[in-house]
Structures are given as structure tokens and as C-alpha cells.
């Protein structure tokens, strides 16, 4: 089985995001960038599947600036076999990302695409579903457990009501949720060693003008300052008589 893992370079989820004063975007000065956490979970799952003898090849793909090489190298160090970078500067609509990934899918012919449910920068949660839709293949989103069967995957999904289990025929797109696994730590020497693995860089084909444009970014309205109370009795009284929520 061959697994394709699309990964996105995003700001460190634990960094504080500051906005530029003119509202044109976020301030990337001094900001650390990482593999999108959900994509790291996808890589980990692919590598575990290979380690279990159920996958033969893992190809990671990223679309973005040259800086994405850093994240692709880390993916190779975690255990991917090959990496592809399609260079593109600036933001891309999820639908265009899905179209670029579709072209890669058609060339690589993987049995399964494992990817994040959501990029934690744009918070779209769209690309995997769109890719599956464009390809006309099954999708299993928000996976917390994957069992590989012959020609099928049994996927437990985290949905609003709890857990839902579906069986999808491969090829399929599976998107990861937080509980699927806990990604391993990769020591620095591993990242250096992975430099010998193949990494293919080429420009992304033109996707045409963006259909979604961020006109400005503002800080969400701040909440009025609250206060500390010194006892539970004071808290209950305040909730009842002041806030009137009890």
C-alpha cells in the first residue's frame, strides 16, 4: 500500500499570534513554524502503518514557499520515504490546494491519502473533503482510529455525537483528528540523516486568481475586565445577584 501525506507549514500552535497594526495579516517576525499538528499525526500514522508491514511507501507533499523544505525534511526524518515540494507563494484557496493535490494523486496513484483535518492557521477544515470530492473517492474525516482491511479501511470518526465507525473502500482520503496517535519525537541527528532521502522540488501549476480574499484581520472584541472573588460564597452571590445567571 502506498500512502500520500499532504502537509502544511503553519505557525507553532503554542506561539502567540500578533496581528500587524494595519490589519493586513499576522506578524511573522520571530514566529516559529512547524508541520501542522494534524499533519504530523497523519505522518505518524503512515509511518506506523509501514512499520506494521502494511504500507510500502510514504510520499509527503507540501505546497508553499521554499521554507516548507524544513517541514518536509522533518517528515522524512519521522519516516516518510520521499518528499515533493510544489512551490507557490502567497495564500491558496482550499479548493485550489485540493486541485493541485488531485494532480499529484493522479501521478502518484496512492492507495490512501492521509492528511490533517484542519490547518491551524486558516482553520478551514476543507481540503481533504474537497480532494475526495474532486477525485470521486470515499472520505473518512476526523479519524481517531484506523484499521486496515483488505482493500478497505475501517475508520472511527470523532463526530459531535461521539464516535462513528465507517468502512471506506480504498483509494480513499482519511483526515486525522487529535486522538489518532501521539507523534514521536525526532532527534536532530535523525533530521540530518534524512537529508539523503529524495526530495523533488518543482513550481506548482498556475491556479488562477484566488476566490477567497482576506481583506483584513482584526483582533476579536476583548471582554470587559472581570474580577477575582475571595470565596466561593462571594462567587455564588455574585453569580446570583450580579450576573443573574443562577
Amino acid at each position: 500500500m502506498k500512502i500520500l501525506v499532504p502537509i502544511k507549514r503553519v505557525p507553532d500552535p503554542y506561539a502567540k499570534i500578533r496581528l500587524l497594526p494595519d490589519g493586513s495579516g499576522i506578524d511573522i517576525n520571530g514566529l516559529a513554524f512547524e508541520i501542522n499538528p494534524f499533519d504530523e499525526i497523519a505522518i505518524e500514522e503512515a509511518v506506523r502503518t509501514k512499520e506494521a508491514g502494511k504500507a510500502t511507501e510514504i510520499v509527503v507533499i507540501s505546497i508553499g514557499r521554499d521554507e516548507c523544505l524544513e517541514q518536509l525534511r522533518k517528515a522524512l526524518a519521522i519516516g516518510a520515504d520521499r518528499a515533493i515540494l510544489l512551490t507557490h507563494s502567497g495564500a491558496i484557496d482550499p479548493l485550489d490546494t485540493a486541485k493541485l493535490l488531485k494532480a499529484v494523486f493522479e501521478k502518484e496513484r496512492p492507495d490512501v491519502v492521509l492528511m490533517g483535518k484542519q490547518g491551524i492557521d486558516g482553520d478551514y477544515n476543507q481540503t481533504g473533503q474537497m480532494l475526495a470530492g474532486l477525485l470521486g473517492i470515499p472520505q473518512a474525516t476526523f479519524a481517531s482510529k484506523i484499521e486496515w482491511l483488505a482493500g478497505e479501511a475501517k475508520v472511527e470518526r470523532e463526530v459531535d455525537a461521539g464516535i462513528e465507525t465507517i468502512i471506506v473502500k480504498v483509494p480513499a482520503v482519511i483526515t486525522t483528528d487529535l486522538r489518532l496517535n501521539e507523534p514521536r519525537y525526532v532527534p536532530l541527528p535523525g533530521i540530518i540523516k534524512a537529508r539523503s532521502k529524495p526530495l523533488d522540488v518543482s513550481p506548482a501549476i498556475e491556479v488562477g486568481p484566488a476566490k477567497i480574499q482576506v481583506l483584513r484581520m482584526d483582533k476579536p472584541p476583548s471582554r470587559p475586565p472581570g474580577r477575582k472573588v475571595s470565596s466561593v460564597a462571594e462567587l455564588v452571590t455574585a453569580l446570583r445577584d450580579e450576573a443573574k445567571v443562577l
Partner: protein
Amino acid sequence: MSKLLVIAETDGSRVLPSTSSAIAFAQQSGLPFDLLCLGGSVDPSDYADYGAGCVYVGNDARLEHPIADRFAAACREVASRGYFHIACASSTFGRDLLPRLAALLDAPMLSDVLSIISIEEGTYTRPMYAGAATATVQIKGNPILLSVRTTAFEKPERRERSKTEPITIGDLPEGSVWESATTSATGRPDLTQARVVVSGGRPLRDAATFEEYIGGLADLLGGAVGATRAAVDSGLAGNDLQVGQTGKTVAPDLYIAAGISGSTQHLAGMIGSKVIVAINKDPDAPIFEVADYGIVADLYDAIPAMKTLLQRSRGSSL
């Protein structure tokens, strides 16, 4: 005038309450709208007096469970009847379905719409970076798809009764098959709809302790239970209780956060609550920055004390 199509969230047999938000969004848009309900045996009557021109009902055994591959294919035909806007609640149902439908229609989509700025200009606001930014975005396409943040669009108003039109479902993909579902049905109100939410974090010792302290307080207040990712990851609570950037969004009248540090990711899911209470033993915990009322205390002392006081005041007000 262009028309809007609302896709109802159903579990295959019932239309779910998140649909109200998508209808509220449609009403706010000022556009004429229709409602599409798909399932195995859905009865849309509770949602047929909000002013939709037409309520399409597509009941088919193959749609008994909400499988996105099938639902998207089934929506496609109706969606192609000249709708310029297609909206659905941003629940896991909508997040699963709507982008796939967008791909089938070769159309762009916005997720988690918070407000409409201008329907004509295609401008809306939506959160990015776990809510650190509220983005004003412009979307161009025909059609466009919009998933609606349920806490941002409240109750729709009752309007004239809609006519109902059954639709027949054509070919559907068969590559995905529903197998089973497990729900942690508790008899408590639904987290996203509750007036009071009590949430717990990592310091709760185990699932039983979580249930005793967090669940116990929630029950006294007639509220729902929520949790942080840390609490869900360590098995204290079910995944369906996770509040935050990558979990559920809630906006109750009262949100009590006990043993929760206040990470950006958690705040993203509850910052819209009317009154926020923080119980944390660290006076510098970031949760206090957003709390209306904070108490620096050990939750193992504070929660039992609160329960006692609440029970007593219940008793005296009877």
C-alpha cells in the same frame, strides 16, 4: 433575485437543532431561501415554519446514516437548481459534507462564518488562527458555500409556513458504508445548546472524579459538561465534550472552567460565553484574563463548597 439553499443537519431520522442557526443565517441574509432535508426517514415539520419557500425532503434508505459521500451527491442535484448561496451549520456534519459538495460544484467555500457584512459584495467575517484574528473575507464564485458558526446565529424567527416537496434520489456512491455509532448519552443537555456549561481540565484525577466533580456541578445547575483537549486525551471525558479550536464551540449564559489553564485553543471554543467563571489554583493562569469571576482555589475544595451553597440556596428558595 438569487436564492439561498440551507442544508439541514440530520442524523438520518431527525433534523438536528444546529439547523436553526443555518436558518437564522438565511433569514439574516435577506434572501429568499429553501431548506433541504435528507435522510432515511426525516420529518422536517418542526423546521417548516421559518419562512423557507420550499422544504425539500429526500428520504431514501441509502441516506439512513449521514455519510458525506452520499449526502454530497444527493445535495448536488438540488444545489444545482440556481442557488447562489448554499449554507449549513458548521457542525461535524456540515464540516464533513459541505466542502465535498463544494468540490462537486467546483465552488469556493468559507468555514465558520461569524457575520454577514454584505451579501452583494460577498463579504463575511470568520475566525482564523484559533480565533486570534477575526478576518474580513471576500468570496467570489457562483455558487458559494458557507458553513455557519452555530453560536453566532441564534434563534430564527417564526415566519410563514413552507410548502414541502419530496425529491427522489438518484445514483449515490457506495464506497463508504456506515458501521456503528457510540454516543455517551448522559441525559444532560446538549453541550452546544446548553444555557450552562461546566468544563474540566487536566487536573481531574480520573474519569470517575471528573464525573463526580464536573458532572455533579453541571447537574446541580441543569447544565452540560465540557472538557479540554488535555482532559479528553487522558480519557477523563469523551471526545464529544471537547471545547475549543478543534472541538465544539459553545456560548452559554454561564461557563465554569475548573482546572483549565486557558490555552488559545480552548478559549477559541468558549470565549463567546456570556459569563465566564474560572476556578484555578494558579493566580497567573491565563484563563483569569477572560473570566468575569475568578477564584484562586483548589477545585477539590471549591466545587464541593459551591455544591453545598447551591443546594442550600435551592432549599431556601423552595
